[in-house]
């Protein structure tokens, strides 16, 4: 009976310095898998490594081979065992399957619901397949993890809510304006905070970026970085005519935009919508501006509140996602249990017997002239044909050993004869 084992370290168990030391690049992964493949104690293996985690998933030929894998990591990453052993988690069987499904569904991510992880796992799987290091069990396991992840994404709201300030601001902008690529952004203040805040907006390809800063040189530098324009800080009021989103992060102690200024600007821009994102502390944008029609002001606390309620919402969706994962683990376990000799032979026999029964009934009900003895003889003959047909395949399955991969043949048998219960799509 094959065992599934997963050894790894992630952001919860290891600090970033250690994670860096343990991480594998794609090239390293290929070489490591090559190495593991040569090891006769390891039947199948797969490595996935991101900046938040490094995990090795494998099926040992005999025993558990945990020490061997740990020694392998130490040797391969040139790091002492004592340095990382305490940061490792080791999951076996259901626990390993469960953990993998959780990771793929982004429930184990630092930012729960972030969409990149599935792609990273798919890439790791692709490398394992290309190197022939994954076999029947891991192939099926990985495919299951993809479908669970897909289901979680589709049927829970786990990926829906913005849980970072920058993302929440972008989401709001998207609900105010219909097409951000037609809108311009003005940055008041050229600090790092401003840069972080616009990151998401810029990836949304806004039409233009305008930078205004007290120190002109810094404004020029930042504008260069984003391919934007520079205006003088004193020109900020008139600049309101040409922009739609204002992100403010200056160190000013007083409001840099007042209600009267914006009211005047509003008239000039024919009351087209303005969206102010104020991430400065103390605040830059007069909160009273929010009471002007078609002007919306969000300061850092407002954004934080939204993020918090989104995190809460995400927690609720996580419960639902957990249920999908439990279901998938049970199903996979069932499939694995079927993947041994005795149950496979039994389902093969059952299938043949039921075919014989159905066909005999069909034919004999139309042959009323036969005597009971004839009927009996025909029944016996059909049964004999059926059992002779599967006699050799069964012998082959019984004859385990010879260093062959039994799960491979069992899997083929189950597929050829369609012995697995069909799963709903």
């Amino acid at each position, binding site marked *: 009976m094959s065992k599934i084992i997963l050894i790894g370290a992630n952001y919860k168990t290891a600090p970033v310095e250690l994670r860096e030391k343990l991480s594998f690049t794609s090239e390293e992964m290929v070489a490591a898998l090559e190495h593991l493949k040569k090891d006769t104690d390891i039947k199948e293996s797969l490595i996935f490594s991101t900046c938040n985690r490094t995990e090795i998933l494998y099926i040992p030929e005999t025993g558990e081979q945990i020490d061997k894998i740990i020694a392998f990591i130490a040797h391969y990453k040139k790091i002492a065992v004592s340095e990382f052993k305490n940061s490792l988690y080791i999951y076996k069987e259901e626990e390993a399957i469960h953990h993998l499904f959780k990771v793929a569904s982004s429930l184990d991510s630092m930012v729960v619901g972030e969409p990149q992880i599935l792609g990273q796992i798919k890439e790791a799987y692709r490398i394992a397949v290309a190197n022939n290091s994954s076999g029947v069990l891991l192939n099926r396991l990985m495919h299951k993890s993809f479908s669970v992840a897909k289901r979680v994404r589709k049927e829970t709201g786990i990926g*829906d809510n913005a849980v970072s300030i920058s993302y929440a601001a972008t989401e*709001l902008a*998207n*609900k*105010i*304006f*219909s*097409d951000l690529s037609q809108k311009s952004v003005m940055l008041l203040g050229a600090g790092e905070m401003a840069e972080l805040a616009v990151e998401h907006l810029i990836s949304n390809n806004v039409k233009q970026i305008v930078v205004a800063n007290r120190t002109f040189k810094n404004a020029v530098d930042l504008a260069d970085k984003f391919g934007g324009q520079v205006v003088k800080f004193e020109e900020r009021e008139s600049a309101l005519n040409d922009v739609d989103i204002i992100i403010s992060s200056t160190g000013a102690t007083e409001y840099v935009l007042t209600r009267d200024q914006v009211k005047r600007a*509003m*008239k000039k821009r*024919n*009351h*087209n*919508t303005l969206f102010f994102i104020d991430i400065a502390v103390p605040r830059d944008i007069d909160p009273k501006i*929010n009471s002007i*029609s*078609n002007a*919306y002001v*969000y300061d850092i606390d*407002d954004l934080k*509140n*939204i993020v918090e309620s989104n995190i809460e919402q995400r927690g609720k969706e996580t419960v639902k996602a957990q249920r999908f994962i439990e279901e998938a683990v049970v199903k996979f376990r069932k499939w694995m249990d079927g993947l041994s000799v005795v149950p496979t032979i039994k389902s093969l026999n059952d299938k043949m017997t039921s075919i014989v029964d159905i066909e005999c009934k069909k034919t004999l009900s139309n042959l009323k002239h036969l005597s009971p003895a004839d009927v009996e003889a025909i029944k016996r003959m059909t049964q004999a044909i059926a059992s002779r047909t599967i006699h050799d395949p069964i012998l082959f399955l019984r004859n385990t050993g010879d260093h062959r991969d039994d799960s491979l043949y069992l899997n083929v048998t189950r597929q050829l004869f369609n012995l697995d219960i069909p799963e709903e799509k």
Partner: protein
Amino acid sequence: MNLQTADILLQMTTALYFMSMTGYLLFLFNQKAFYQKSAFSLISAAIAFHLISMVVYTVAMGHVPIQNLSQSLSVAAFAIGCMFWFFHYKFELKILGVFASILLSAIMLAVLMLPDAPVEKNAVLRGFWLYSHILLVFAGDAALALASGAGILYLLQEKGIKTKHPGFFFKRLPSLDLLDNVGYTCLTTGFALLTIGLVAGFIYAKAIWGRFWSWDPKEVFSVGTWVVYAALLHFRLNSGWRGRKSAIMTIIGFLIIIFTFLGVNMLLGGHHQEFTK
């Protein structure tokens, strides 16, 4: 082809509108594309049945079913259905179906409950100008009804964003820009149709009664409605009455339309009275 067939078809139409409403409400809560697609198919089927029912009636009776209140409401519903269909394809604003299907179901329920006594064929009710008048005014009112629907959606979305508590509707409704745009397009379309429709009515009145204007209460209120919308458009273009103000005005405008349609006849009488008795 007889009256009974038309009645049965109308009942089926109503049932379809209700099923579509159910679908749209499920979509509102669940956000599954399947519900929205089914609901849209159902509302499309309902509009088709509605049309067939009116054709059957016209063939059976020899005149268009617009002789009493029940029939007028039914035509109004049909106009709203067609307008919704048109704007659905223009803007892909799926959530507007929630508003349209609820409004349609409510009107059709009234249509079925109101007495539909056959009315003596009225010699006055014929001619090109009359049918143009009816067709254009109904189509215009339907577009303005949808404008108020977009206005309601706008206010729901705007309230959440303004008060910084994006709630139930935040994810479910599109951006303020888009809602404002849809409302504006519905408004201009409706206003244009209404204007031509009123002109056709004046021409018809001149032909029948020899004068353009006869201080009929419905005439007065119709022109009043027109003035309200004209003012809204004027302020929108010249004083930036967009967004919230515009949304509130379209809703008020639609309430005046409803009063013009129902209230004037019930309370004030006049020569439009026959069709809404």
